[in-house]
């Protein structure tokens, strides 16, 4: 598909400009509207009694004392809510063989992770609800827990769901070419490593929360939802609370960070909706930070044994790996917890020409917090496996890691083509991105600096990653498997009487600048000043139907729908204008809020046209029926995903006395197709890189042998703060996707997906002269020192 070039070339195009966000001022003045800012008449507050055990049978619950506490309105157990909420199961048919057990909002007979909600207390304030929780008596009979994913499949491991006969949730094998023959070929050298990726969580600064309001007169549930997929949640509330979909309105106002955390079905939020329905009044639940740490989905937690074969001349002949990941006691509903492992199997090695590829993934149950899709799902693991082995192989054969990449990266003129795992690829620029990266970072100078520093006993390292990112998913991602998740999104553009545009879209805003880029596209394509566009998103009652913003799909899918809608409205308006001006539409244009001649000469204002249509329709021919509103929808066809690519590099300094790693600088070259707003994209990539650095160096959920999370506070779970973070240089290559006129691909997850591999490689480059290497993230000082000790023998 190709589009008229004037969309991108005309004077007030806006697409491609670093326009400041219109909503920045509102957020800067403290006038954001987050869920906890919502306060409704007669609103009451929920607090939860949560399991203190990783695995325990609930033998008795006594709420007598709690019920008499001040301010208590209601108390519900799992059995109480099971009468009103149907259970849910996190499986999808396209993930063949995936199994999970029915899940209830509150645990019924058995609690399966520390933090699982058991009893809900509703009171007139959160403080009083928490007071009453202290008086709820729950008797637990602790059960043996399965915590370690690596022993979860052993014969003596306690079974979390005995009916399954094992703790295996899902397994998949990918096999292309003949890896054994390739590795056995004379002259092929093998590198083999065991990678360990720590368990992370999202730590959105605004914790999860909801305000649910039920109007019994209309059987109507309004949910204020901090999240990414309002229409998906509408279906879930409908299905499990027994209300018609049209009787549920889900509103996402401002969302204080999500990163995939707030796009799942959480028992405490479902319970809050059920309580609102039962009590016929608004109920608020806001997770505190401890609740966030033990109930927000976790991610990563993979152990991977991997091998790569390479010839002396630097041809990579194949990759062979085995990935094991623990996902908690259930597969998360409705997106499932097998997607991350599936992505690792799909994406590892995808930038490179690989003839031979073998991968096995196993997903196992364990008694820890549920794991599911968090920013850059699977990408940090897939990129670290391949590019970690690649730089290890480069050291083995004595070749520069950039040279080894350039020999094996797919050629930029070789698309469309498929990866070894069968992914369809098009419009990528790995070679150009890596060349640009080495230019902007001044690679040769950095290597000289590294050599000079080593003479002073300073250990600096440089590490790279060449990566792909899955963006703009088609129905093949979720819909095909039966999930109520739209892959098609809609946009509406309306010309109001004053000549302004009101636009709405089914994609959502969590801070990326969704609303800003929608306005830029609408203003530019239609032809009005940017400040004359108002945007509505995040409301199932007032926006078109669609999937929301996740998997880096907002700009690419929602943006294209907006482009098409704005173009359709423009066509309509020019038809009306042609009648009024007694000419033909092809002799007119819209520029700067006016109907103009093609050269920009003003003929009439849009306000004059709209006021005539709305107020004085009698002046128009009766067979002219102007709409002044247009809606268009868009979904990706032809491809399961639209891949982007990038090349990134880190320069680090490792203090070999303390084990501390300091990131000195980071560079990212990203090809996300057409860039709509460079400033927003750059800062999103930087934020993603910082999240990736967090995963590589600091972040890890620690558990005791009994399954207690040991660092469930912000003082103990280390996130990146400003002082530790480097400046990050971002550059772009723009290879528009041919799947849309707009040509935009996603950019939101690239940094998080790529940075960990670059950091891993940089640390190992720094450690190499000491004979040490480290393959476990986060690369903490303790682990660095242990690696150095092991090398010293």
């Amino acid at each position: 598909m190709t589009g008229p070039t004037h969309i991108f070339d005309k004077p007030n195009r806006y697409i491609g400009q670093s326009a400041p966000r219109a909503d920045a001022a509102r957020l800067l003045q403290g006038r954001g509207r987050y869920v906890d800012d919502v306060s409704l008449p007669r609103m009451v507050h929920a607090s939860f009694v949560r399991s203190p055990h990783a695995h325990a049978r609930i033998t008795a619950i006594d709420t007598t004392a709690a019920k008499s506490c001040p301010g208590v309105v209601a108390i519900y157990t799992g059995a109480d809510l099971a009468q009103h909420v149907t259970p849910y199961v996190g499986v999808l048919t396209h993930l063949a063989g995936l199994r999970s057990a029915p899940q209830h909002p509150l645990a019924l007979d058995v609690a399966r992770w520390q933090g699982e909600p058991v009893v809900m207390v509703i009171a007139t304030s959160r403080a009083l609800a928490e007071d009453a929780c202290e008086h709820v008596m729950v008797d637990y009979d602790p059960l043996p827990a399965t915590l370690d994913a690596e022993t979860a499949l052993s014969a003596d491991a306690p079974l979390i769901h005995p009916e399954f006969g094992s703790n295996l949730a899902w397994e998949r094998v990918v096999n292309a070419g003949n890896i054994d023959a390739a590795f056995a070929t004379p002259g092929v050298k093998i590198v083999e490593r065991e990678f360990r990726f720590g368990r992370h969580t999202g730590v959105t600064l605004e914790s999860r929360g909801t305000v649910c309001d039920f109007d019994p007169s209309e059987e109507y549930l309004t949910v204020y939802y901090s999240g990414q997929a309002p229409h998906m949640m509408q279906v879930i509330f409908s299905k499990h609370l027994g209300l018609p979909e049209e009787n549920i309105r889900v509103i996402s106002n401002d969302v204080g960070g999500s990163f995939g955390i707030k796009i799942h079905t959480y028992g405490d939020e479902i319970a809050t909706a059920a309580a609102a329905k039962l009590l016929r009044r608004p109920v608020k639940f806001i997770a505190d930070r401890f609740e966030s740490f033990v109930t927000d989905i976790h991610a990563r937690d993979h152990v991977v044994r991997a091998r790569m074969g390479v010839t002396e001349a630097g041809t990579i002949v194949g990759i062979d790996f085995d990935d094991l990941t623990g996902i908690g006691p259930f597969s998360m509903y409705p997106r499932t917890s097998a997607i991350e492992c599936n992505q690792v199997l799909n994406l590892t090695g995808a930038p490179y020409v690989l003839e031979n590829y073998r991968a096995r993934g196993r997903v196992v149950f364990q008694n820890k917090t549920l794991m599911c899709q968090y920013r850059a799902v699977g990408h940090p693991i897939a990129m670290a496996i391949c590019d970690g082995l690649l730089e290890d192989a480069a050291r083995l054969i004595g070749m520069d890691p950039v040279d080894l990449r350039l020999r094996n990266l797919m050629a930029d003129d070789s698309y469309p083509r498929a990866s070894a795992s069968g992914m369809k690829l098009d419009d990528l620029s790995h070679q150009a991105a890596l060349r640009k990266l080495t230019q902007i970072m001044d690679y040769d100078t950095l290597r000289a600096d590294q050599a000079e520093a080593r003479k002073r006993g300073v250990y600096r390292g440089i590490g790279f990653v060449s990566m792909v990112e899955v963006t703009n998913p088609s129905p093949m991602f979720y819909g095909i498997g039966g999930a109520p998740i739209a892959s098609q999104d809609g946009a509406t553009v309306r010309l109001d009487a004053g000549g302004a545009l009101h636009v709405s879209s089914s994609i959502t805003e969590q801070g990326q600048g969704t609303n800003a880029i929608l306005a830029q596209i609408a203003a530019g394509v239609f032809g009005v000043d940017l400040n004359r566009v108002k945007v509505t998103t995040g409301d199932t009652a007032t926006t078109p139907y669609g999937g929301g913003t996740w998997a880096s799909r907002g700009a690419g899918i929602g943006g294209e729908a907006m482009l098409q809608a704005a173009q359709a409205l423009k066509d309509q308006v020019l038809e009306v204008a042609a009648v009024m001006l007694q000419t033909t539409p092809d002799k007119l244009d819209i520029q700067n809020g006016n109907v103009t001649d093609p050269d920009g000469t003003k003929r009439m204002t849009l306000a004059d046209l709209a006021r005539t249509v709305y107020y004085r329709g009698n002046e128009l021919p009766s067979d002219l029926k102007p709409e002044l509103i247009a809606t268009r929808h868009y979904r990706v066809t032809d491809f399961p995903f639209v891949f982007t690519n990038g090349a990134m590099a880190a320069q680090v300094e490792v203090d070999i006395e303390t084990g501390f790693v300091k990131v000195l600088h980071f560079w990212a070259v990203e090809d996300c197709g057409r860039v709509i707003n460079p400033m927003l994209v750059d800062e999103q990539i930087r934020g993603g890189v910082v999240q990736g650095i967090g995963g590589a160096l600091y972040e890890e959920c620690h558990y005791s042998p009994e399954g207690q999370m040991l660092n469930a506070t912000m003082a103990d779970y280390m996130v990146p703060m400003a002082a530790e973070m480097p400046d990050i240089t971002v550059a772009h290559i723009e290879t528009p996707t041919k799947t849309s006129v707009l040509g935009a691909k996603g950019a939101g997850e690239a940094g998080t997906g790529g940075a960990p591999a670059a950091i891993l490689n940089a640390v190992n480059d720094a450690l190499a002269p000491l004979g040490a290497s480290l393959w476990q993230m986060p690369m903490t000082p303790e682990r660095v020192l242990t690696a150095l000790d092991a090398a010293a023998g």
Partner: protein
Amino acid sequence: MTRTVAIDLTVNGERITASVPSRLNLVDFLRNDLGLTGSHVGCEHGVCGACTLTVDGVAVRGCLMLAAQANGCTVTTVEGLSDQGLSTALQAAFTKRNALQCGFCTPGMLASALAYVNAGGTDDRDAIRAHISGNYCRCTGYQAVVEAICDTIKEART
């Protein structure tokens, strides 16, 4: 838990008298009793910085101070900073640099940045990074925040 304390304070230039539970922290009082929802609650133990606000001219954590302790104090929240024009230059610089994404950390980040600027902080990037290291931002990567604070200091000099 039912003990209450009478307090009399100035919030954003307005005199407030109230009777509050002794255990109520300042940020909950501002948000829930006064409707000043610009101050955000992120961790409730003084680590994340989202509730940073100004008490008697000093940047404090609203979650680590009781409402009762604010008796007799002058409290300025992000709403007050904005309405009284105390942070106009910083807000403009944050907008221009896109030094915010979701906006949840922003009121606290702004209060910390303002304290730095008002104390005569320099445009040294490491010093700025050190100063805002009590304010957690999951979205931006911090670089734009550093740039915005630098811009503000440089422009004030010219």
